[in-house]
């Protein structure tokens, strides 16, 4: 009843009418009686209004309007503070949203925690060792036969290969999967059916499942894909089903293809597959691991030649998938957390300074009769207004930042499609910013209310500033500098790594080199038609205007993935496949070294005369020559490569070293073999064309030359520069983001020091004026001010360097060409930060020396 009546008073005109009515009534009463007898009618009216119940709301509205006015008046400091908090909120929410989607969110499969990967662990007799994801089928079959922890186990290999869905062959990501692959993930086709037994069995007919994305891209809509035929791996395969769009394993797979061929031929060290398995509901990861260790120890004893010191380890799929990305994302998370801390500290210093500066104003209001609770309420509102302004801006930044992160992420970050702004994190950061505002905005003001009203009025705010607040500010400044040191050092190390990576001597010249990945479809058993295709294509390409040199190779420099071993002179008697020295293997066409600018140090390049039926020859790089022959001449010696055949080859040339595994790794020994004498991986070669000018411009005509010969040839054009950029994508992403955070941290810390020093200078102006009146010169005053700033800076730098030494050690895996404790970087950071904070201190200190003693002293 009463509530409804009161609700009516929410309407402004109802309130105005009531107000008029009350004023009239009070006037009529005043006319009847003696004023003194009636008591304080103003308070009576105020209390009566309170009975209508919405006074509090009205006052809050006033407070908000007042707060906005105050904030607008306090200008730069407020804008800086709000931006700072918004940045903290936005950056943290964005980075955590990515971390959540990529690292923490469970995979979208049934009981994803039970899916594991099985990888080798080369122990060398030690407890831990190098993990290798590639496993061999014979080992896998033994694990499968002997283990009891798994509900389903499968192996697969994933390649990008030529697939014909229509008239032209295109590259697609194809996963060859063993029988139980679909069961491991407990995934059902959204359209069509899973593989039948006949399709799955060894040497069976084979069938394909395609991804939702691939079905749409090739056939318009998923339903139309079922029943169509794909041509891949030189055979025709029916599409029996489409897997749901949520299923994406191995990442970006277009086609899952069963019937992997005969297992009998596969070698125990033919590590060309990966393995996944699903734990039984009652089996724990620990149990599975123990079991697998027992099995691999058994295999070790049974096959000492191939399985010595090789163990198998089960790892949850999710952890395996995010692998290296995890450390990078955690690094980013750490960095933004530091930014948030600095942002909070900066905000806090600004608020502390402002709160103390307003002590006088608050005392005046208290003296004029404002009740304590009313003042506190107003201050609360003020702090909240700023906090919510920061929050609103922060939310915007979070949304934009998350999108930017997703757009800029290097290609090896999985599951980016699922990234969305994380509501709970956003809430957390917003609440945090509100708390900081309240925590640091209120106390100085509250102090003002608590003290005797007369005190600040009589002495100015200086008395208050000397108490508690100043210690808090100093601690905050030290913290800001220390955190900034950590971030700037991290950023500097990553930027230096990036620079070193980009300047690493590659051993080849990537400028103006066009690459065309080309897969032929050999019809003949000996692949002679594939060879003829490449031979005539290369002859044609060399004739094109603008072509300086042309060749072709299996693994282009920076992206060679073939990793095997070799022997010199003869094979060791006992075991053909153990103890070969490691080397990269490559199959190349004549002219490739010239096209890549790799110098031929000794001997000759291959020619078209090095073909099938002629003496087998090889070219090695200088790293191999050094490793295998020391100072002696390798030309004419015999080398046996553990590649497609174990036939001896005569070394006819030595070439310069190229970083075949990418710019981050020193050149390794490498064996080059002529393409006319060897099979090459999936009939795929990268045609390499060195051009006089813009390489990409020549792409279309070279592509046409390839397609003219056969529509079954799939091609993909790129440039060597672009290919190399992929290596740098992740380091660049890291360096840019950390660099950005470091700059932000630096600015924030400087703003913090400047703010505090300017504030202190203002507070001490009377003292300074007095000193100057008593004869202190400008230098004395300058030093007085500088000394305090420098002391804080020095403490901050020391704490920061200690923190940086601790934290940069954790990221040694991300560094290249620079040590985590690189002295030059540290010296640079210390000098740079020291100078900047000197500047931030100097400007207000300098201003202090311009104080006119008379003006200041007269203020009292």
């Amino acid at each position: 009843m009463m509530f409804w009546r009161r609700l009516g008073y929410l309407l402004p005109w109802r309130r105005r009418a009531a107000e008029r009515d009350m004023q009239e009534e009070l006037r009529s009463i005043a006319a009847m009686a003696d004023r003194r007898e009636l008591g304080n009618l103003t308070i009576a009216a105020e209390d009566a209004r309170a009975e209508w119940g919405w006074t509090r709301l009205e006052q809050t509205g006033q407070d908000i309007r007042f707060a906005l006015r105050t904030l607008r008046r306090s200008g730069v400091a407020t804008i800086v503070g709000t931006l700072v908090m918004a940045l903290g909120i936005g950056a943290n929410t964005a980075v955590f949203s990515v971390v959540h989607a990529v690292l923490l969110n469970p995979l979208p499969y049934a009981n994803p925690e039970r899916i594991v990967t099985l990888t080798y662990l080369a122990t060398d007799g030690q407890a831990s060792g190098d993990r290798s994801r590639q496993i061999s089928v014979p080992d896998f079959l033994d694990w499968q036969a002997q283990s009891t922890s798994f509900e389903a186990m499968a192996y697969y290999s994933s390649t990008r290969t030529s697939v014909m869905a229509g008239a032209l062959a295109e590259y697609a990501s194809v996963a060859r999967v063993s029988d139980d692959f679909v069961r491991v993930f407990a995934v059902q086709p959204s359209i069509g059916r899973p593989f039948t037994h006949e399709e799955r069995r060894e040497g069976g007919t084979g069938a394909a499942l395609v991804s939702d994305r691939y079905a749409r891209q090739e056939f318009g809509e998923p339903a139309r894909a079922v029943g169509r035929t794909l041509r891949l791996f030189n055979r025709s395969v029916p599409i029996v089903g489409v897997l749901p769009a949520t299923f994406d394993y191995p990442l970006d797979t277009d086609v899952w293809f069963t019937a992997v061929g005969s297992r009998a031929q596969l070698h125990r060290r033919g590590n060309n597959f990966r393995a996944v398995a699903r734990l039984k509901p009652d089996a724990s990861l620990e149990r599975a691991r123990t079991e697998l260790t027992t099995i691999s120890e058994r295999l070790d004893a049974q096959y000492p030649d191939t399985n010595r010191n090789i163990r198998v380890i089960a790892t949850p799929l999710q952890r395996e998938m995010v692998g290296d990305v995890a450390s990078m994302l955690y690094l980013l998370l750490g960095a933004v957390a530091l930014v948030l801390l600095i942002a909070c500290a900066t905000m806090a210093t600004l608020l502390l300074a402002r709160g103390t500066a307003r002590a006088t104003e608050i005392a005046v209001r208290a003296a004029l009769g404002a009740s304590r609770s009313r003042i506190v309420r107003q201050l609360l509102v003020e702090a909240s207004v700023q906090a919510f302004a920061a929050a609103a801006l922060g939310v915007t930044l979070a949304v934009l930042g998350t999108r930017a992160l997703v757009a800029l992420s290097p290609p090896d970050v999985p599951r980016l499609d699922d990234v969305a702004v994380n509501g709970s994190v956003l809430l957390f950061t917003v609440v945090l910013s509100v708390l900081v505002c309240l925590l640091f905005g209120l106390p100085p003001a509250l102090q003002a209310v608590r003290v005797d009203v007369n005190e600040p009025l009589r002495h100015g705010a200086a008395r208050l500033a000397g108490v508690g607040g100043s210690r808090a500010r100093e601690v905050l400044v030290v913290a800001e500098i220390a955190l900034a040191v950590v971030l700037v050092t991290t950023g500097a190390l990553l930027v230096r790594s990036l620079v070193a990576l980009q300047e690493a001597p590659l051993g080849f010249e990537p400028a103006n080199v066009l690459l065309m990945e080309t897969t032929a479809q050999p019809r003949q058993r000996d692949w002679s038609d594939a060879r003829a295709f490449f031979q005539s294509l290369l002859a044609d390409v060399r004739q094109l205007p603008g072509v300086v040199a042309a060749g072709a190779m299996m693994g282009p420099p920076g992206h060679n993935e073939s990793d095997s071993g070799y022997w010199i002179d003869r094979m060791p008697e006992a075991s053909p496949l153990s103890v070969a020295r490691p080397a990269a293997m490559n199959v190349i066409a004549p002219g490739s070294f010239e096209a890549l600018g790799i110098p031929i140090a000794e001997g000759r390049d291959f020619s078209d005369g090095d073909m099938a039926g002629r003496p087998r020859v090889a070219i090695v790089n200088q790293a191999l020559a050094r490793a295998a022959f020391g100072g002696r001449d390798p030309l004419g010696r015999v080398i046996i490569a553990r590649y497609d055949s174990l036939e001896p080859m005569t070394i006819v040339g030595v070439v310069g070293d190229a970083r075949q595994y990418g710019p981050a790794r020193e050149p390794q020994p490498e064996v080059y073999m002529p393409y006319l004498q060897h099979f090459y991986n999936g009939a795929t070669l990268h045609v390499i064309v060195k051009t006089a000018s813009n390489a990409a411009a020549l792409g279309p005509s070279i592509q046409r030359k390839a397609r003219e010969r056969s529509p079954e040839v799939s091609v993909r054009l790129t440039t060597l520069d672009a290919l190399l950029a992929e290596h740098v994508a992740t380091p660049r992403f890291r360096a840019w983001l950390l660099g950005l955070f470091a700059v932000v941290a630096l600015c924030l810390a400087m703003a913090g020091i400047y703010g505090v020093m300017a504030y202190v200078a203002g507070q001490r102006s009377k003292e300074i004026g007095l000193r100057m009146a008593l004869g202190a010169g400008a230098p004395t005053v300058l030093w007085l001010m500088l000394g305090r700033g420098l002391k804080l800076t020095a403490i901050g730098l020391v704490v920061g360097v200690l923190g940086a030494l601790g934290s940069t050690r954790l990221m040694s895996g991300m560094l290249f060409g620079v040590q985590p404790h690189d002295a030059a970087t540290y010296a640079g950071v210390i000098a740079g930060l020291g100078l900047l904070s000197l500047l931030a201190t100097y400007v207000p200190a300098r201003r202090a020396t311009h104080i006119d003693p008379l003006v200041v002293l007269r203020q009292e």
Partner: protein
Amino acid sequence: MEPLYGVLDLLILRTLLFGPLHGYAIATAIRDSSGDRLNIEFGSLYPALKRLELKGWINAKWETSEHNRRAKVYRLTAVGRRRLHQETSEWTDFVRAVAGVLKPAAGEADS
């Protein structure tokens, strides 16, 4: 002497039981009927009037008095009348209870 919190409401309701009165008249009526012992300023009374009005226990109307003066006159509503009975009996109970506690025990009378 200041009345206890809540008693003011009771006094106002009781005063209005005898007929409608304007605000100032309520104050004087309370003072008179308490033999000048309860001197409640109109200023203290006024918010209570507004509160009772909001609760619907009294209502108010502008009327012109015998001296041709306009004044806002308050009168008891039916709800207010019921409340008055209820509150009066609660008050009597309360006074009796307090008096029982305060009644000096036999032995203490002179100490």
